[in-house]
């Protein structure tokens, strides 16, 4: 019993609460004017009403179809209705300063097309020259834009008033009718008349249509009502498209003023579904870029003659998208400060700089552009002032914003900082040949950075850059050399005026590249903690800091990252090197860089592998390494072929030029020899690349070749070294001895072995150095024997000499040469290679089994 009473009580309570709520809440009455008679084109609104979506938002909607006196937008502007549907003409009205706001767009293509009879021979818009076109005033706008694109001006066709039925077309009183693709086509189809449509979409006039529009006044006075009405209508649209049959039932029952058949409405629904925005796009959403494109198109075709501020016209629902939402006071502040003066560093490439024409460019310049668009204020750099002057003027509030600045204590006295938007560390730059400054060292296996190495050294810093203060604050004295620009700081290091420079990493990288300062080296971060770049705002404008922070949030880190990547990847354009001298230098430099890179890569590969090698080398690891190396080599060979090609062509060009230059014969001879040496070096490099690639990716064919010629060609290549070390070469190989196999591979092995001996000779400096090579033919095999008198191989490594990464050489060996040689002989010749120490030196024996196809000469 008690329970019953309780339930009754709670029921009463609930009912009274509902009643209370009903009374307390105010129902908004709004009117929506449709631009045509009731049909599926407006299905979303019917369904929003029918399914109670409006009611849920406490809105009651009166939907009225078009009347002949006033267009919906006229009703809207007169204040007779709160909302209206519209085509693209709303944009034109906006350009004529009518305060319309577009809330969403249902279709992404123009539903408006020109219908022509299939029997008419009119296939494209251009075929309409001197033809009769019937269209309403509102339609003229888009249709004539399309015709103009097809090359037809208003004089080129006859404009007829519409009869709003298809009779004129059917009875050939007109040639084309502007009509809705989703609607009128049906009449023709029904009457068995074949038609085709000419769509503005095919002429690049993709437009938004089926807009919901309201006025600025409505938006200002009832922003919440607008948002609710919009949301509820969109819900209605989604419902309508997912429940087409139910929607058609509703239209037939309640809105069928046109007496359309179910079939007709179904046709309309199908056609309309083709026009709505793609599924992935949120129903109704509008993109600024697309509006901009539409605006451009119509401005070009002359139908819109005044600029339109799309930010005013295109409604952005704060609740659904990540957009900049400013408070009224912030908006007011921005209105009061429409133009903001920037203090920029003209030489802070690539962060911000000015090019030859004084244009403000760089990463920060791009970010500024985005912010300026977001905020709708002009942000222009004050021109003609240096960075030092910028810093000075910032203190007197004659500059408003400094878009790219690092934080220092002193600056915080007179500037307000935004949140950081990118990292840009300061680095120490030194010359390569003075490695006395080492900022990086390993302590207990951990990398430690230290400025200690700079103590007592002369360090170049840029005037008014934060490095100055930070270095001046160091406990131990560092002699600072203040230079006006980053470039000047770097040049001071080159000239020896300073031992090092502390500069921003990005700036240093860019300058080192663009000025080819190859003698400089970026050592490492100067400071433990990363440096950031901020926006700084004058002290008396705290409002702007907040606004900039919000705008930076909206722009987002990924966009800023994208901009950074873009600028860091921008190649620096160098001056054309016309003079021969520059050409020589260029070639030599590239050759050097190439070789440095090559050695660097090998060293790196070696150290990397040595680190892994601490444990026992298992076969598995060495195989996987093999694969990794293979991949690396494949990439590298491809990458290096390009510069190698350019270099070879350049050297060839210089050689060609030399022939016509008026210089003494001895000079010409000298230069020619040098050029030829370079060429040989480069083709060797190329060969090496090819060999590496072939070794790791065997894709080669066996051939019959002469061993003698093969080995002679190796000796020829190494002739320079052989002569330099006064080595005597004894060979005893029958000239007719031919074997089947990979000639280039054997050549490679021989290069390795001979080179190895030469290196050994160079190291031990034996008197009377000799290398002898001979062959011994057995019944089923061939021995190629190479002996030297360089003292032999160290006993401690002779057992492992053919294992990878074991080197006979104290310094420069890669430890790969002999390993690769053995691999080649084993894998590709099914042979073996062995080494023993003789009385005088090392003796390598290559044993190659002989099969059919060989020939002992």
């Amino acid at each position, binding site marked *: 019993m008690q329970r019953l009473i309780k339930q009754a009580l709670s029921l009463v309570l609930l009912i009274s609460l509902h009643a209370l709520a009903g009374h307390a809440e105010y129902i908004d009455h709004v009117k929506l004017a449709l631009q045509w008679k009731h049909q599926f084109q407006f299905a979303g609104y019917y369904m929003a009403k029918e399914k109670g979506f409006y009611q849920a938002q406490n809105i009651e909607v009166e939907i009225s179809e078009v009347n002949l006196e006033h267009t919906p937008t006229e009703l809207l502007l007169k204040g007779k209705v709160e909302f209206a549907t519209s085509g693209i003409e709303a944009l034109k009205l906006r350009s004529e300063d009518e305060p319309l706001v577009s809330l969403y767009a249902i279709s992404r293509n123009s539903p408006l097309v020109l219908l022509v009879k299939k029997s008419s021979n009119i296939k494209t818009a251009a075929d309409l020259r001197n033809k009769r076109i019937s269209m309403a005033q509102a339609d003229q706008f888009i249709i004539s834009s399309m015709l103009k694109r097809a090359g037809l001006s208003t004089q080129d066709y006859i404009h007829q008033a519409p009869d709003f039925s298809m009779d004129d077309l059917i009875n050939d009183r007109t040639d084309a009718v502007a009509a809705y693709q989703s609607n009128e086509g049906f009449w023709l189809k029904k009457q068995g008349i074949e038609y085709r449509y000419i769509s503005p979409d095919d002429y690049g006039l993709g437009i938004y249509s089926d807009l919901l529009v309201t006025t600025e006044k409505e938006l200002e006075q009832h922003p919440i009502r607008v948002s609710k009405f919009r949301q509820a209508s969109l819900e209605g649209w989604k419902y309508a498209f997912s429940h087409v049959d139910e929607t058609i039932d509703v239209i037939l029952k309640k809105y069928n003023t046109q007496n359309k058949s179910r079939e007709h409405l179904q046709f309309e629904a199908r056609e309309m579904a083709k026009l709505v925005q793609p599924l992935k796009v949120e129903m109704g959403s509008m993109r600024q870029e697309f509006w901009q494109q539409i605006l451009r198109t119509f401005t070009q075709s002359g139908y819109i003659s005044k600029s339109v501020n799309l930010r005013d016209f295109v409604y952005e629902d704060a609740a659904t998208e990540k957009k900049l939402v400013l408070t009224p006071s912030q908006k007011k502040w921005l209105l009061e400060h429409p133009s903001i003066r920037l203090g920029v560093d003209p030489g802070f490439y690539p962060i911000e700089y000015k090019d030859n024409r004084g244009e403000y460019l760089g990463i920060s310049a791009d970010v500024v552009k985005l912010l300026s668009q977001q905020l709708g204020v002009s942000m222009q750099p004050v021109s003609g002032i240096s960075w030092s002057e910028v810093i000075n003027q910032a203190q007197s509030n004659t500059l408003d914003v400094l878009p790219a600045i690092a934080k220092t204590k002193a600056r915080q006295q007179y500037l307000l900082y935004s949140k950081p938007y990118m990292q840009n560390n300061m680095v120490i730059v030194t010359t390569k040949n003075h490695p006395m400054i080492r900022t990086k060292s390993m302590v207990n296996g951990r990398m430690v950075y230290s400025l200690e190495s700079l103590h007592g050294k002369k360090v170049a810093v840029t005037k008014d850059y934060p490095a100055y203060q930070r270095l001046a604050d160091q406990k131990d004295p560092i002699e600072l050399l203040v230079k006006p620009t980053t470039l000047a700081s770097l040049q001071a290091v080159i000239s020896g005026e300073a031992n090092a420079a502390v500069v921003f990493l990005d700036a240093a990288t860019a300058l080192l590249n663009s000025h080819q300062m190859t003698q400089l080296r970026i050592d490492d971060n100067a400071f433990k903690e990363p440096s950031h770049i901020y926006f700084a705002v004058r002290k008396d404008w705290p409002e702007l800091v907040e606004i900039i922070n919000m705008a930076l949030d909206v722009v987002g880190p990924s966009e800023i990252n994208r901009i950074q990547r873009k600028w860091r990847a921008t190649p620096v354009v160098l001056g054309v090197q016309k003079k021969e001298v520059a050409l020589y230098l260029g070639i030599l430099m590239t050759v050097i860089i190439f070789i440095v890179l090559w050695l660097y890569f090998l060293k790196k590969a070696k150290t990397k592998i040595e680190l892994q090698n601490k444990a026992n080398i298992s076969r598995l690891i060495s195989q996987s390494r093999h694969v990794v190396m293979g991949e690396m080599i494949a990439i590298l060979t491809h990458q290096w072929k390009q510069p190698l*090609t350019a270099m070879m*062509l350049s050297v060839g060009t210089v050689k060609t030029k030399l022939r016509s230059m008026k210089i003494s014969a001895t000079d010409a001879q000298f230069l020619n020899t040098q050029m030829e040496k370079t060429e040989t070096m480069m083709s060797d490099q190329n060969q090496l690349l090819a060999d590496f690639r072939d070794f790791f990716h065997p894709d080669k064919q066996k051939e019959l070749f002469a061993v003698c010629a093969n080995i002679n060609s190796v000796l020829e290549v190494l002739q320079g070294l052989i002569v330099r070390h006064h080595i005597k070469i004894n060979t005893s190989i029958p000239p007719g001895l031919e074997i089947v196999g990979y000639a280039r591979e054997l050549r490679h092995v021989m290069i390795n072995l001979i080179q190895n001996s030469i290196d050994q000779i160079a190291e031990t400096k034996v008197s009377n150095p000799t290398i002898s090579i001979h062959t011994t033919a057995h019944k089923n095999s061939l021995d190629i024997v190479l002996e030297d008198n360089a003292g032999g191989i160290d006993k401690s490594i002779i057992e492992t000499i053919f294992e990878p990464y074991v080197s006979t050489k104290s310094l420069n060996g890669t430890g790969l040469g002999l390993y690769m040689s053995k691999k080649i002989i084993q894998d590709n010749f099914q042979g073996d290679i062995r080494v023993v120490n003789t009385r005088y030196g090392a003796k390598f024996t290559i044993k190659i089994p002989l099969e059919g196809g060989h020939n002992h000469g």
Partner: protein
Amino acid sequence: MLLDKTLLDNTIFIVDDDENILNSLVVFFDLLGFKTRSFSSAVDYLKQLDDTQGCLVCDISMPDMTGMDLLSELNKVAHLRPTVFITGVSTVKMAVEAMKLGAADFIEKPVSTDVLLDRVMGAIDNFKPSLVAVNDYKTLTPKECEVFDLIIKGVTNHDIAQQLCSSISTVEKHRASVMKKMNVDSLALLITTLPKLKPLGSALACNA
């Protein structure tokens, strides 16, 4: 190096997306006395086609449009230059494809200037008969072109007359004129000019 004057009448058209290689090639051919024009993409080259006599030196692997794609495009239009490919990645398959498309030569990168010059000169030299034939063909009147087209398809004078709605004697006159202008005296020889006219692309009636 002194090159033959008539050889230097040729413009070397260079297409490579690698700026360094492009520059090196331009400097080299410039130095020899050739006129050069450089393009950093195949698309640029296509856009600026004209009938300047010369040789196309072209990279194969380029973004947007490869050298192969370019050549097959060029085969559709009148392109009166031999094509020499220089490529970083060369496979037998690629070389075969290039030759099938009608490339004059196929060189692997890196290439020395001597070899390059040799190959380019060879390509220009081998292209000469084509140029002669094309120039001959261009002297034909539209009517003669039609007749030419039908003769090489083996149509008899009688049928040609019917197809072109003219008398046999007129056709015979045209036929004689075609033979004279193309510098041949038999049908067999006339047919041998056909491959040489390939550079005309679709401008050649029977290719269209």
